[in-house]
């Protein structure tokens, strides 16, 4: 027990002295949240688009403006002519434009807004259709009644992304913690020195895991609170499930990290492989883009990635989406089992004297 305490202390000091690890564990998830939050409109409300309107002189725009107001998610700014409107679009003060000369509606888009134009065109199509009816003094006879049946608090795109980023930060922290740390100890011959002492390898692993679990837990909490404070989001977190899941996910990720540590010798190689794996997973696990818009084969790949399930379970634990408890526990236990199988088992081969 005394040796374990000593190892715990040593691990804690190592982590606290390692500025790079601290930056990546604490600052990076927050940076991800802030950058993506503001880029995707987390501060202003992602659903509001700015439309610029140019109406020819002597033409009434009352009906058109009413139709635009009925959309409910559009801010209208008036411009005297098309050139001024295009300038405003070039400066991204306006998302898309409308010209109304009394006979024809022209919708103006910026070809550079390729990711957004799909949404703007949909809005424009709706405006065009509704204005056509109103112009003939006809009201639609058919419409849709949208009913939100998800979690009450989760009504923002960002509610879904934040838990995904938390899951990603747990995965990368777990991968880096073991792969980078153990290979660094190996390279510095620290493992050689430790294993000739009465210390059992499992104690070293337990000390590393305990400290990293605590660090990861604090880091996710910090990220979550910053997201809540800065982006004004609400998360009805189930703290029991959250705590259990963060521990299980971190442990499982450490298991995957141990597998990397087994494959490489140098800490830089381990960090690079961990970096590559986490980056690839980040793009394919449906964290930033809904999986429905991915081609079918990419959806298949996505279903094979642990991060996909980690993000799913994290969204459930933070109260963003529903999930059956059975599925949540299956994911959580799956991660614990991965950690239990990979971490101590593979670590036996990692924590041994370097004969070279």
């Amino acid at each position: 027990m005394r040796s374990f305490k000593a190892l715990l202390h040593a691990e804690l000091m190592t982590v606290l002295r390692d500025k790079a690890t601290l930056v990546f564990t604490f600052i990076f998830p927050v940076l991800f949240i802030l950058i993506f939050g503001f880029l995707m409109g987390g501060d202003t409300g992602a659903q509001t688009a700015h439309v610029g309107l140019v109406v020819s002189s002597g033409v009434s725009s009352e009906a058109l403006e009413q139709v635009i107001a009925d959309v409910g998610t559009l801010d209208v700014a008036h411009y005297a002519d098309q050139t001024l409107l295009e300038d405003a679009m070039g400066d991204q003060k306006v998302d898309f434009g409308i010209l109304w000369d009394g006979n024809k509606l022209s919708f103006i888009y910026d070809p550079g807004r390729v990711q957004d134009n799909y949404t703007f065109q949909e809005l424009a199509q709706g405006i065009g259709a509704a204005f056509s009816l109103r112009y003939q003094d006809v009201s639609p006879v058919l419409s849709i009644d949208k009913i939100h049946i998800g979690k009450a608090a989760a009504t923002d795109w960002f509610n879904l992304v934040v838990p995904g980023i938390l899951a990603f930060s747990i995965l990368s922290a777990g991968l880096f913690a073991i792969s980078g740390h153990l290979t660094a100890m190996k390279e510095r011959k620290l493992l050689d020195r430790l294993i000739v002492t009465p210390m059992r390898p499992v104690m070293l692993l337990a000390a590393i895991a305990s400290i990293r679990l605590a660090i990861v837990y604090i880091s996710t909490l910090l990220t979550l609170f910053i997201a809540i404070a800065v982006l004004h989001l609400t998360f009805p977190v189930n703290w029991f499930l959250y705590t259990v899941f963060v521990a299980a996910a971190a442990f499982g990720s450490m298991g995957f990290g141990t597998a990397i540590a087994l494959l490489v010798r140098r800490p830089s190689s381990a960090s690079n492989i961990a970096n590559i794996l986490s980056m690839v997973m980040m793009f394919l696990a449906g964290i930033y883009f809904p999986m429905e818009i991915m081609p079918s084969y990419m959806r298949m790949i996505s279903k094979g990635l642990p991060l996909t399930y980690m993000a799913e379970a994290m969204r459930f634990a933070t109260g963003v989406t529903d999930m059956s408890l059975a599925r949540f526990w299956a994911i959580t236990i799956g991660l614990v089992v991965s950690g239990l199988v990979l971490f101590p088992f593979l670590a036996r081969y990692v924590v041994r004297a370097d004969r070279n």
Partner: protein
Amino acid sequence: MKGILLIARVHLITAFRERVTLFWFLLFPMFLLVVLTLIFSGLGNGGSTNFSVAIVNMGPSTGGATDFAALVESVFDRAATPSEPGKEPLFSLVKPAPDEDKDAFIEREQKAVRLGNLAAVVVIPPDFNQQLMQSIAGTGAGDASVNKIVVYQDEANAGSQMATSIIKQIISGIDREILARTGKFDEQKDIPTDTIWIGNASGELPYVDFLLPGIILMGFFVTGLFGVPGAILFARDRQILRRYWVTPLTTPRYLAGFALGHVGLCVVQFFFLYILGRFAFGASVNFAQPAPILFLLLGSVTFLAFGFFIASLAKTPNAGMAIANILNMPMMFLGGLFFPVGGLPLVLRIIVFINPLTYLSDGLRMSLGVEAGTFSLPMTVGVPLAWILVCVLVASRRLKWDVER
């Protein structure tokens, strides 16, 4: 000259021998180009996007011209048919079995929406046909408030939101069709619409044409940010530079060779990314013009200088890599390479405005005719040049060419 060429060759060979270097400088930009193009180029075009949607008609099927519920169902059936063989349909429809209790079906599918297994549930109310007929037969315009098709969705799920938005368009189309059929709406008097693209664009820009210049610049940026300090600091740390200095090679000649190698690396990067974008995804942007070439060269040199700037700040290779890693993400995402950066709060806007990537990506896209451009031409050239000047000044004063004794 021979010494310069040899240093350039060494720089290139060293970069290509490092598997990690190959990944970050070549494979990662290629991966990003492939993934983002595959995801976003199909957006809204059909063929690759697929939403699972449940639909249920709560009323009886009456048949005939006034069975509007059947019309709605048939339109959804069409959306669930692939537009051409091998493509995915827009919707995968889930319908209740003939003898299934419809309320139980709705309840089950609502749960599927909540669990994220289904994008939306469309419910046609039991008295839909009757209500619609009354609205149409009523005086003047109909009353849409009583003819609502209910769509259950999860607003937090982007896929569910997109599916609902598409459903809304489909219903709007059906509405017009019904109004036209019943003589309420004269399609001949429909207000014509057209689309105008600002700048020189003649039509909608293919996503790959927007992305490719950004990815190429990202590649140059990563090469400068990681490759230059990495190469310089590791060579200094392992005393390779010290060995150079005992040969007739001078620092300026070493720098010239290094810069040549760096530009060569950027050329290789450009070549691979362009080939991938052009032949795998049909990118049509024309880089073979003086202005884009100058912008690419300016980008390559700016990030070379920036790399030296990082190297001059770090005492060890690991510190250099840590600084590069910290700068990488904010600069990359706040440089307008992948997302528009307008409307950011002041703190982030400062990063956008001092970031050379912002001006280079704007200038390159403007020169390729894929963007109207946010900044003026002198700004897009002047700011990167100012960065080069500052970086060279700082590096020339601070960078140590040998390990401290």
